[in-house]
């Protein structure tokens, strides 16, 4: 229910925000350096404004939009001249590929390095890793991407310069998958590296806190093996805040993807969103925001579920809360602590 209300609020904002921006989708007066523009005549502008229903009252446009959504119709892009759903679906897989792969990779790297540092807290290894990671996480993604591009693709020629696949080539089966992965390597690496720093710091800190807890001493006193202590007792508890963090930063991930997509001319939603804002393509903006909002909400839901798996206390708390609510007949919502 909460998710539903949130969703409705988001829908409404999606509709009104783009329209609040100054600018007109059909006015093209000036361009970027060297850019060619077909400036519409006054008459053409009027034609398109009527054609796309922008001359109608905002309220009517809003209800039309909602009615369209009910029928699963996201609208038709003014600028890209295609169904919004088709445009988004064409790019979504690439964004998902990049964002999920980068999330995985940055998690893996962050957890490995973070626990490495925490277990060797204050040793020279920890200090070197710490310094390195802090410096690294401060490099903006596009700079990192350009560096990787120039060195590994331009200089060494190990990776392709741009795009998500080799075009106009007749690859089949595995060759194709290999080709896609080959093209994805640098963008994913860039995005992962840009994200690893934060995860590393989080893991290092929480793990250090956990390591100082009483139950760790108990575990040691019980004579458990070091492996078991580290992974079952320490790391598992330290991962809880990480789950929230990953879910929350998903939106930010797409933001980071914009920069990476730009550097590598990689197809994806990020770049599309930037362009859509630029040309004031309302239906497309609504569509992209909708998908992103949906993605972030889904990630939060997923995080909630994961939390229950990882932390038995939340499960017990929930049942307890429900029982209590039933008993006192109060409108108390069971809630998963985040």
């Amino acid at each position, binding site marked *: 229910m909460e998710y539903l209300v949130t969703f409705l609020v988001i829908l409404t904002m999606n509709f009104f925000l783009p329209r609040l*921006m100054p600018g007109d989708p059909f006015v093209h007066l000036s361009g970027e350096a060297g850019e060619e523009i077909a400036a519409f*005549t006054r008459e053409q502008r009027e034609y398109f404004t009527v054609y796309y229903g922008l001359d109608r009252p905002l309220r009517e446009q809003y209800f039309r939009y909602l009615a369209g959504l009910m029928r699963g119709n996201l609208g038709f892009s003014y600028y890209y001249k295609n169904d919004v759903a088709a445009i988004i679906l064409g790019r979504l897989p690439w964004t998902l*590929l990049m964002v999920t792969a980068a999330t995985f990779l940055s998690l893996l790297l962050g957890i490995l390095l973070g626990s490495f540092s925490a277990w060797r807290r204050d040793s020279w290894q920890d200090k070197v890793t710490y310094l390195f990671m802090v410096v690294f996480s401060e490099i903006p993604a596009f700079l990192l991407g350009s560096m990787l591009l120039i060195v590994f693709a331009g200089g060494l020629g190990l990776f392709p310069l741009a795009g998500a696949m080799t075009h106009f*080539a007749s690859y089949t089966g595995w060759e194709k998958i290999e080709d*896609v992965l080959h093209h994805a390597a640098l963008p994913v690496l860039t995005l992962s590296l840009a994200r690893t720093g934060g995860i590393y710091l989080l893991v290092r800190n929480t793990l250090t806190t956990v390591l100082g807890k009483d139950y760790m001493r108990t575990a040691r006193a019980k004579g458990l093996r070091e492996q078991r202590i580290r*992974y*079952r007792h320490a790391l598992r508890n330290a991962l809880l805040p990480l789950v929230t963090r990953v879910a929350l930063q998903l939106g930010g991930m797409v933001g980071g993807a914009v920069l990476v997509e730009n*550097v590598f*001319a990689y197809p994806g939603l990020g770049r599309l969103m930037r362009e859509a804002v630029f040309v004031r393509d309302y239906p497309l903006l609504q569509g992209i925001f909708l998908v992103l909002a949906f993605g972030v909400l889904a990630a939060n839901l997923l995080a909630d579920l994961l939390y229950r798996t990882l932390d038995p206390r939340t499960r017990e708390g929930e049942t307890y809360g429900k029982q209590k609510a039933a008993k006192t007949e109060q409108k108390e919502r069971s809630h998963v602590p985040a």
Partner: protein
Amino acid sequence: MLVKGVKKKNCWHVALVFALFLSLLAGAAGCGGKPEPALGAAVPAPATPPPGEVAEGKAAPREPLVIRLEGGDWGYCSPFTHYPRGPGIFKMQLIFDSLLERGEDGYIPWLAESWEVQNDGKTYLFNLRQGVKWHDSREMTADDVVFSINYYQEHPPVSIFFGDVLRDPEYLLEVTAVSKYQVRFVTAGPNATFLPAAGLARIIPKHIWEHVDNPQEYLEAEAVMGCGPYRLTGYSKEHGTYRFEAFEAYWGPKPRVDIIEFVPVSDNVLAFEKGEIDLTEVPADLLPRFQNNPEFAIKENPGFWGYRLIFNYERNKLFQNRELRQALAYAINRQELVEKIGRGAAIPGNPGILSRHHVWYNPSVPEYAYDPERARQILQQQRLAGLSFTLLVGQDREVRIGELLKEQLARAGIQIQVESVDMKSRDARIREGQYEIALVGHGGWGGDPDYLRTRFASGLSDWYSGTPGYHNSRVDELARRQILETDENKRRALIFQLQQELALDVPEIPLYNTTGYSVYRPAKYDGWMYMFDHHALSHSKLSYLDWK
């Protein structure tokens, strides 16, 4: 090892999530693996040689010549669906021919072999070329031409040259097919822009479009069927790729390039050096990498893209004072803008408005050499002290232009506040007249000089394209006469006078026109050429054809 640790107990949630992630990954990879939409189903898939071979591929005569260029999505290539911004229009024009074409020196006969102007410039009779084939082998006839023009009355295409003329039912009275190969246009009176307006309208096949009433949403393979030298055989919106193949039954000059491919490019100079693309524009600072090397040929592009300063005559009546405008012209160092912002790859603006590279540029108009002292004197004579204006600019480079102008004008005692907004907001504010002085950058400076009329003649006062509040009866008179003049030489003389008058009156200040450099490998392909009014080699249809 983390996964293992968690999996031991109660692991199905985690397993589910990971399985989901993995399937997404696999899904994405699978999607990428799908073949790109094949257009023109009847086209046999030509065996494209790997890029390495192509680079050397000039040896064998039967080997198809493949040219690769920087891609990016600029829309599906029908006249109704390419994007209003960017080079989509030129891709569309590879597929769709028109009655005239833009050559190196002017308009050249194309689908129309010849034409006659009759009845005091009111009637145009175009004689069409015979045996012109649509891509589906049907013949293109006068019916298609009549249909296209009529279709545009109801459904405006994205770009239409002089649409005001061609789509005005009070001007264009009648279009008829006199015979299978003759089309007659009857107009209300002589108009110099009518020939290019009718001549550059894209001709679309009647047998396809007569059944289409929502051309904006018509995305079938037939939507990109024209009678031009190339057929679209591949397009991907998300990847920004296009593939064009020469049309074997083309009526005109033989295509020299067999296949044109537009591919995604991250850094264009890097891609060019690696041989991934065959032509690129190079920033002036990187030019030495390609100079004095026989492998590369460099061309300086004509300056048909530029920045200008416009004044709001209605908001601030001070601008009505011609001396003030002249003082501003003296106070602006256009050469410094060329060097510092244009990095030398630009030419200073012409006070007579047209670009200095325009075919009808008048080189003898008064110039305003940079002279802040003179500007000060003029302002003193006019008793204009302590002037202060707000300059509306876009972003990035335009902010730098704004800051430099602020510095320059301060030397003449004029204060400037630079106000930066995003480009679309700036455009909207100009349209509503919400500015005092504004900076605008756009292309088209090489086009038909009738833009001097639409911009400066009073009575056409529209914030969108004109200069509301500006009146000059000499300008009005010349602007009116040139549009009625269908004799090219006489019209040219009038445009020269008009530039002279505008340079004296300074209704606005052109700052500079960017030129830039194009680099290519002549051994691979050397057919590149410009259109007389345009700045990019790859945009000219003739660049790919056996012409000259």
